[in-house]
């Protein structure tokens, strides 16, 4: 089947690198900023750069949240990337305490380990290892440890492990990827993670 993928553009960051990756996989991809045009796609990708607060406000002010909820109700698969995954959670504290889209039960806060006694750095930038859970569809065919490219200072933690698709550690444990029904998300950037990232995006297209 032909995949038709909408890449949400809400005026922060650059959705083009995601577009390149999706097109490279042979799918049709379109950048969508107008909520009225978010219809009839087989998959949706929600990228994100900036802060939790500013991004969710941009999405709401453009009416994109309503359009996204409508598509999720229709079970159109959604992949949030980096901040695009974080804002699917209940709440976040970046840029001030902010309510998220509430699709995933969890909290987004700054890394909490003591940076003065650690040789680890914040922001967490670079390729790092994630541990996929066995049931994950995004990581189907991957081994027990896989490397992906991260760049972030805030991280998602979930009270229940139900939606967690992969775990990671940077001074403390945090969620590297989520899956719940037709909703998925990655803290890392698959579009910047060489073959590993392309393979994960193909899994999203083929298995969701």
């Amino acid at each position, binding site marked *: 089947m032909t995949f038709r993928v909408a890449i949400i553009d809400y005026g922060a*960051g*650059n959705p*083009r*690198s995601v577009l*390149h*990756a999706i097109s*490279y996989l042979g799918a049709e991809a379109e950048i969508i900023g107008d909520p009225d045009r978010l219809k009839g796609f087989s998959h949706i990708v929600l990228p994100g*750069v*900036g802060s939790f607060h500013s991004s969710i406000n941009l999405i709401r002010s453009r009416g994109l949240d309503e359009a996204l909820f409508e598509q999720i109700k229709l079970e159109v698969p959604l992949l949030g990337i980096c901040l695009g995954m974080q804002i699917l959670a209940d709440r976040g504290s970046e840029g001030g305490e902010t309510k998220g889209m509430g699709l995933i039960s969890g909290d987004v806060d700054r890394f909490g380990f003591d*940076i003065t006694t650690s*040789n*680890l*750095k914040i*922001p*967490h*930038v*670079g*390729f*790092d*290892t994630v541990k996929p859970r066995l049931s994950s569809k995004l990581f189907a065919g991957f081994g027990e440890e896989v*490397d992906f*490219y*991260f*760049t*972030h*200072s805030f991280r998602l933690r979930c009270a229940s492990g139900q939606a967690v698709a992969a775990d990671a550690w*940077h001074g403390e444990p945090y969620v590297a990827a989520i899956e719940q029904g037709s909703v998925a998300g990655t803290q890392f*950037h698959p*579009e*910047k*993670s*060489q*073959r*590993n*990232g*392309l393979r994960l995006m193909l899994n999203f297209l083929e298995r969701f």
Partner: protein
Amino acid sequence: MPKKRLIFTLLYQEDAFYLSRNFRLQRVGDLEWLSKNYEFSAVANSIDELIILDVSRGERNIDAFCNTVAEISANCFIPLALGGGITTAAEADRLISSGADKLVLNTTLTRDPDFVTRLIDTYGSQCIIASIDYRIENGACTVYINQGQERMGFSLESYLCRLEQLKVGEIYLNCIDHDGTGTGYHLDSLEMLPRSFNMPLIIAGGAGNQKHLLQGLDCSQIDAAATANLFNFVGDGLPRSRAYLLENGVSMARW
């Protein structure tokens, strides 16, 4: 802990790519030449990050630069850093919308630190790479700006302290005396790092073979080794270097 990185830096000027030796530029070829002789997208499979710098000595043409960047990076699924003479928010925005994940700043770090702070507010610390050029003068490292032409009156150590306070995301450290010589990195500079230094550090300038990359990445303070040497590393040079680094126990991403 994030993996150590291998970075390739492309030096661009007016539609062509250049080799640099002690900051003197030698033309190698244009984009067509680069794709034909070096299959750049294959090379990109062996590196963790790509940096493209507009090192034009005359007036810069940002449109032409961005068009070239778009062609090179279309099939590169790795982080991309762009830089060269950025002095305005409009230029920064242009490079970001051309696909830059990070911006490389140099001269503007000292000329206009307030502008750097505004860029950090807009794009975040992780987006800003501070590039430092220095020369070895009587055993000390002296900072130069403006394409290595303008000597600054301060040491590398005090400059690094200032940049850390400015909250830049990473440091790209390039020794002008080693640049393009193929004699290895100037690792003595690591002794000049401030005691509290805790920023990601990219070492550049002087790598001529895979052993030099290993020497750099074996240093605990160094997060990434960069090379801009088209002749020594492109072709199968980078794939072989990456395999060599992995064989020698460097913690690097696998894909």
